[in-house]
């Protein structure tokens, strides 16, 4: 085995090695992203996120993030200050709820009476499904009426009475 042969073999194996390195790097990146999750949002993103969850108190159906009203601008500044001071989104929201009540939240809270908005439809759906299932089951189990046999059509009560009368008359007319 000479040096030229060794070099040739090394060159032949190089593409495979590059592919292996690329795959390893890709896998490592995926693992790092999965372990670390998304990068933390910037302060501006946090402010935007919190503001979009709060109703502008003087507007109709506009969030603090979307409203151009001066009060909404001041609320955004207040949120930004609190974010910079290290308050969490939950603490900031709680502060506004303490002053304005639950109506300041764009989505009703999941606790208390307002939580019924989330749970009642599920309960109604469950009751409806159970009722439908019970009715379907009863309907499938109910005895089906015998199908009319060929040549013996279903007669009404009046028709039956007429037939009975005719038969009785014929019997009376029979000799002996």
């Amino acid at each position, binding site marked *: 085995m000479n040096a030229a042969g060794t070099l040739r073999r090394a060159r032949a194996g190089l593409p495979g090695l590059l592919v292996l390195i690329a795959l390893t790097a890709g896998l490592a990146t995926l693992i790092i992203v999965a372990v670390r999750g998304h990068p933390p949002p910037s302060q501006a993103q946090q402010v935007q996120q919190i503001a979009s969850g709060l109703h502008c*108190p003087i507007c109709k159906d506009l969030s603090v993030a979307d409203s151009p009203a001066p009060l909404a601008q001041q609320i955004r500044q207040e949120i930004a200050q609190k974010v910079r001071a290290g308050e969490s989104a939950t603490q900031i929201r709680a502060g506004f709820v303490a002053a304005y009540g639950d109506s300041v939240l764009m989505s009703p809270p999941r606790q208390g009476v307002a939580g019924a908005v989330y749970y009642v439809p599920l309960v109604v759906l469950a009751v409806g499904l159970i009722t439908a299932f019970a009715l379907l089951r009863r309907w499938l189990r109910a005895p089906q009426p015998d199908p009319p046999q060929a040549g013996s059509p279903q007669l009404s009560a009046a028709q039956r009475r007429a037939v009975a009368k005719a038969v009785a008359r014929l019997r009376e007319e029979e000799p002996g």
Partner: protein
Amino acid sequence: MRRWITSRRAGLLAGVVAVVAVIVALLMTGLGRDPSVFASPLVGRTAPNFTLPQLDGPPVTLAKLRGQIVVINFWASWCTECQVEQAALDQTWQQFQDSGVVVIGVDFQDTVDAARGYVRTDAVTYPVVEDASSKTALAYGLRGVPETFVVNRSGRIVKHVIGPVDPVALASEINSMLGTRAQ
């Protein structure tokens, strides 16, 4: 068997009627309420403290007024309804300031010059403070002006008025807090 089925059907019908009645009652309650009027969750709770610069005088700190009845009125020079209630607030201040009642006007989303002009022209005699950043307004859950909060001697908010105050109702509230007969 037939009787059982009949009673079962009657029970089912009664249940459906009850559910419909509850839903209708809830809707009726909601329809009877003015959606633009929000009950302040601060009533019954300690009034948020503030220290704000006075237009003409030293800063005012709410906590330092503990032991006195405080009427906090949020207003602005551009607010026409605030002009309507101006006389009532002045009258309250004149009538009760010697009985340990303080009226404070908190200027909201306004310029100092406009506020000074208003105070001078409309002869506002009670202390007026400037809430330039609206921090105090936000702490009080303000939705507009005028809004008024009455704070008792222990520092708790006992009344919240949206819109112009009724001078008779305000005097009656203060009198009952002072423990005297309404005049």
